[in-house]
């Protein structure tokens, strides 16, 4: 047993060393941080910064890049988040309930969380809706929303929060990000001729972006809350 363990250790070390070699080599090949002639700075970034504000459709360049120039990547991320919940729910369904004794909630904590909850939700909504002008957006607001739902579940117990919607409605909420994004992609195709294209007309473009951000935010928040429900064993799929 001991000898086998030692062999395993030596093997693991050799494997890691073999992996470290190419990685270090790759890092050494990278251009110096912030150097002006790095490929990313020479072409792409300059282009984004120059054209981002008008053709990205958002004063916050990050949002413009996420929702317009790199819309396909962002769509992939939204799918990844949704898939993460599917996987967690599938694995967590197999874990048996441990039945640990929960500590009764302190009235102080209960009161403070009930008072703070609406403010956190309002902040999340603010971050989502203002994503095109201020730092933030669908993902950022979505994680704040998810954090609020998890905070509420921690204090009030996961059951009442998970019970706010039926399992079926939760599943639809979690899919919102993917569905809304796919829908806007098709709408973009119809309006501009490109998949994920955003119309040039400012009001239409802005409303489409806000709908998109709201979809990503609600979907992301519901997925994160769903991860917690799955892990804490209140909701099986």
């Amino acid at each position: 047993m001991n000898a086998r363990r030692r062999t395993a250790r030596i093997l693991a070390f050799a494997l890691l060393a073999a992996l470290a070699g190419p990685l270090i080599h790759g890092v050494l090949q990278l251009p110096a941080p912030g150097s002006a002639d790095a490929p990313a700075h020479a072409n792409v970034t300059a282009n984004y910064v120059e054209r981002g504000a008008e053709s990205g459709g958002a004063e916050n360049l990050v949002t413009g890049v996420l929702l317009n120039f790199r819309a396909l990547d962002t769509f992939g991320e939204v799918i990844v988040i949704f898939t993460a919940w599917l996987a967690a729910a599938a694995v967590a369904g197999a874990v048996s309930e441990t039945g640990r004794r929960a500590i009764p909630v302190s009235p102080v904590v209960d009161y403070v969380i009930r008072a703070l909850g609406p403010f956190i939700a309002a902040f999340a909504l603010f971050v989502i809706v203002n994503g095109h002008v201020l730092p933030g957006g669908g993902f950022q607001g979505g994680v704040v929303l998810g954090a609020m739902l998890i905070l509420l579940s921690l204090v009030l117990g996961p059951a009442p929060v998970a019970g706010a919607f039926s399992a079926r409605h939760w599943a639809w909420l979690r899919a919102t990000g993917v569905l809304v994004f796919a829908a806007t992609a098709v709408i973009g195709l119809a309006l501009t001729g490109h998949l994920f294209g955003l119309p040039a007309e400012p009001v239409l473009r802005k409303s489409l972006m806000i709908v998109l951000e709201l979809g990503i935010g609600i979907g992301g928040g519901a997925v994160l809350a769903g991860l917690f429900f799955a892990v804490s064993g209140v909701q099986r799929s």
Partner: protein
Amino acid sequence: MLAAVHALIVSFLVIAGAAFFFIGTLGLLRFPDFYTRVHAVTKCDALGAGLVLLGLAIWSGPDGEGVRIMALIALLLLSSPTAGHALARAAFRTGLQPWTREDGDESD
């Protein structure tokens, strides 16, 4: 003259806040058990961060970030003591015994 008084008040508040942080950290390192450490950290954290933020709010003035920083102070004064209370309560409910003077000889 007014600018100097303004700067003086701000520096006093920020330095006082930093002093509270220092005392709180000292307490965290030197106190004998969980409860006394939570006690030190929670109080000094809320007061230290509150004073530093108050200094910064005065520094940026009401038309700058000042109002937003005041909201931050309100949030901090609400959340920090609650977190400390929740920590201490969870420890007590799970049966962690507070330190008493009798076992002080061996634990110090």
